[in-house]
């Protein structure tokens, strides 16, 4: 009986397919950009999530879903080319804010207000008005902001993770440092005792070439004298933390550490990559600063890899960067609530654009999002906690190929796993890291202490388009120069470096940022208001 039914159903399906071939205009194809992270065994253009969405959203709506794969780390370049060539997918995702701005300026994408209002009630509810505001700007100059892109909702906004070696603290008979003085003593004592062997360089430090001061300001902002920094200045110097009054002493501190051998003398040669990773897992370092969950991430697991090499080694979070001018606050920058940007190019016709919004609206409904992010019980995870959060999440290797998935990339309206409210979402953050839950929770707590939201602007900043990259390269040179400068010539090198940065286009950027602030076209938090 069952068999007969199955045959009947497949026949119906076949006939249905044949029927659709005849009535072609009834069905439309929706092409959706999908990141490819080259996870072994996962074909993102033919994955479980696609089949699930096709079955539950596509088929009932007569929409054929097609996932178009773009390599994650070159997505911006690939999408630029596709947009320029008119071959971009109907739903485009990107982390490249400059590209989105360009698309708005060049008028190459759909204005989404009407579409969202009519077809995206669930999507709008999921994202919320404040977040949607990130995707709005006044392009035609009529004083009313239009919706140009849909910002994905960032679930966890923590960005800063500072980690120190618990086993080194024990060896030095020290408590966890709570201010810069104690922290510096820890670094010096660790170096003196050669706790990581002859190649001990306690402070893992490198230059992140795409944005050299992005990570360094985590340290130097502790020296900024906020009595001299107005809210306006804070936004004007959005990309120039080295210009903030007081930060000079922070760079001098780094310079001292360099000359004491605490920062490796190769810091400017390796671009935050392999050599630094090796030093970390070989146990040469006593401190590093990356993402709040970095030691336990599956791709670069500094904790487990290091434990294999060094008996008893253990990373724990540390929070010493107190700013005295703010009464001892330990500043941590956090991401804006907006994650990646979603745009619909004008090459997509109206019918397909409507389908695109409908697809995201479907995705925004809690039960659908849960499936798209977590997959199937027993296959992708072991079971559910009382709160309805999956536990025993399987790593990609332990899931059969046909069930492999990537939650964030394919359920792209949510950057991070979403279970309804903040409490559940935060509890879920530590769940994938069995055995280290307490460490992860503590790290996130530190990362959200005295947190200020990163700065962004709601108007196109022409100077940043023109000079952003050259300013960053000048900042890279500046950082290399001041950290390695002869201590006696430090002031000279520092001043000359600042001038170079200003000349490379920073002055124009600062002026334009200042204007944008005065016009109210900014987002973010001034630490003086915390």
């Amino acid at each position, binding site marked *: 009986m069952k068999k007969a039914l199955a045959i009947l159903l497949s026949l119906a399906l076949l006939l249905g397919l044949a029927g659709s071939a005849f009535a072609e205009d009834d069905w439309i194809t929706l092409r959706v950009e999908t990141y490819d992270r080259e996870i072994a065994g996962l074909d993102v253009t033919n994955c479980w999530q696609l089949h699930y969405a096709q079955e539950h959203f596509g088929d009932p709506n007569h929409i054929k879903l097609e996932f178009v794969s773009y390599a994650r780390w070159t997505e911006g370049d690939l999408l630029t080319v596709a947009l320029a060539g008119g071959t971009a997918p109907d739903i485009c995702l990107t982390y490249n804010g400059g590209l989105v701005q360009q*698309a708005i300026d060049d008028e190459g994408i759909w204005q989404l207000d009407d579409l969202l209002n009519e077809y995206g009630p669930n999507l709008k509810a999921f994202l919320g008005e404040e977040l949607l505001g990130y995707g709005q700007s006044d392009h035609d100059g009529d004083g009313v902001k239009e919706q140009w892109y849909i910002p994905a909702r960032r679930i966890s906004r923590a960005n800063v993770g500072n980690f120190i070696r618990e086993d080194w603290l024990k060896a030095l008979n020290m408590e966890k440092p709570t201010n810069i003085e104690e922290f510096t003593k820890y670094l010096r004592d660790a170096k003196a005792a050669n706790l990581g062997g002859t190649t001990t360089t306690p402070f893992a430090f490198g230059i992140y070439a795409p944005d*050299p001061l992005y990570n360094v300001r985590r340290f130097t902002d502790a020296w900024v004298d906020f009595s001299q920094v107005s809210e306006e200045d804070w936004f004007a110097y959005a990309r120039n933390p080295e210009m903030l009054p007081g930060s000079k002493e922070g760079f001098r501190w780094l310079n001292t550490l360099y000359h004491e051998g605490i920062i490796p*003398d190769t810091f400017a040669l390796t671009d935050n990559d392999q*050599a630094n990773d090796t030093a970390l897992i070989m146990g040469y370092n006593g401190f590093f600063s990356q993402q709040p969950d970095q030691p336990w991430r599956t791709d670069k697991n500094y904790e487990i890899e290091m434990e294999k090499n060094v008996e008893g080694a253990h990373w724990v979070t540390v929070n010493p960067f107190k700013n005295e001018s703010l009464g001892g606050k330990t500043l941590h920058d956090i991401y804006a609530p907006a994650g990646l940007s979603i745009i619909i190019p004008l090459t997509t016709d109206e019918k397909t654009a409507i389908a695109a919004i409908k697809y995201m609206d479907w995705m925004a409904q809690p039960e659908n999002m849960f499936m798209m992010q977590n997959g199937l019980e027993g296959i992708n995870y072991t079971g559910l906690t009382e709160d309805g959060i999956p536990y025993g999440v399987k790593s990609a290797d332990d899931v059969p190929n046909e069930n492999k998935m990537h939650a964030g990339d394919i359920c792209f309206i949510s950057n991070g796993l979403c279970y309804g409210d903040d409490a559940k979402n935060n509890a879920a953050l530590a769940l994938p890291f069995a055995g280290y839950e307490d460490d992860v929770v503590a790290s996130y707590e530190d990362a959200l202490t005295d947190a200020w939201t990163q700065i962004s602007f709601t108007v196109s900043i022409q100077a940043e388009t023109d000079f*952003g990259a050259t300013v960053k390269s000048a900042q890279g040179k500046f950082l290399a120069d001041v950290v390695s400068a002869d201590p006696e010539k430090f002031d000279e090198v520092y001043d000359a470096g600042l001038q170079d940065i200003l000349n490379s286009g920073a002055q124009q950027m600062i002026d334009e940022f200042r204007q944008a602030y005065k016009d109210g076209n900014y987002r973010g938090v001034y630490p003086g208001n915390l």
Partner: protein
Amino acid sequence: MSGETRVKKPRGLSWIRRDWRLYVMLILPVAFYLIFCYKPMLGLMIAFQKFNMFKGMWGSKFIGLENFRFVMNMPDFPVALRNTLFLNLMGLIAGFPVPIVLAIMLNELHSVPFKKVSQTLLYLPHFLSWIIIGGMVLQIFSPSTGIINATLLKWGWIDKGIPFLTDGPHWQFTYTLVGVWQSMGWGTILYLSAITGINMELFEAAKIDGANKMQQIWHVTLPGIRPTIVVLLILNVGQMMNISFDRPYVLGNPMVQNYCDVLSTFVYRAGITNSQFARATAIGLFQSVVGMILITGANLITRKLGEEGIW
């Protein structure tokens, strides 16, 4: 002569009828050049436009030389230009004679197996990607942990690491040295084939006249490969404005920014990373025009000196 009357001047399309097979065969390479080399040149016009990627090169606004003016006024431009010329000049001075000497040395080798092994080892670096070479350079030249500095420090010959990679002039030296090492073997190929083309009787005559090895090299081998040397020199001079992206990008670092930033890395930064394609194109066009002038000039001078140029 009787043959003369038989040669008819081609009349009408008879030449096609006679050699049509050859012309058919020519279609493919000609089409290749038209499609992949000439058609893309149309895109050069975006150098004179405020390029809008959605409107494309036919719909964007013409703004004259504005892109050129903008790029050339950036403070990094003169630095990048100077470094490009300097590093290329150093590469030419240090790198051009080496393959010639090497080719002559290889040619004098009698043991065939030894010659083959040497050649293979010499060619090998050419096939390594600059990313890999960059890793090797780091291992060898790092400030205190590189093989050279670590060894010298251990022996007590120096008390401070030599800043091969972290000091400007030292870096220029390292850059040039690594470049010569990477390309010298490959460069010998053309010279070796040129040497093979020299008439053996000349060597025998020289021997009979009592010329020793050095004299044979000086009076027979070198004049024999002179046309090859000249052609390669002209081509190299024409490349003075062009510099690869990967080599300076991989070997460079922020500490020597003022020495390692060249036009290609500058274009990448100021043009590609911010999707400023029109500006990147403007620099590319500028490089090509200067390259054209240089190569024409070099060719002219060579011809004045009585050598055969490349055209």
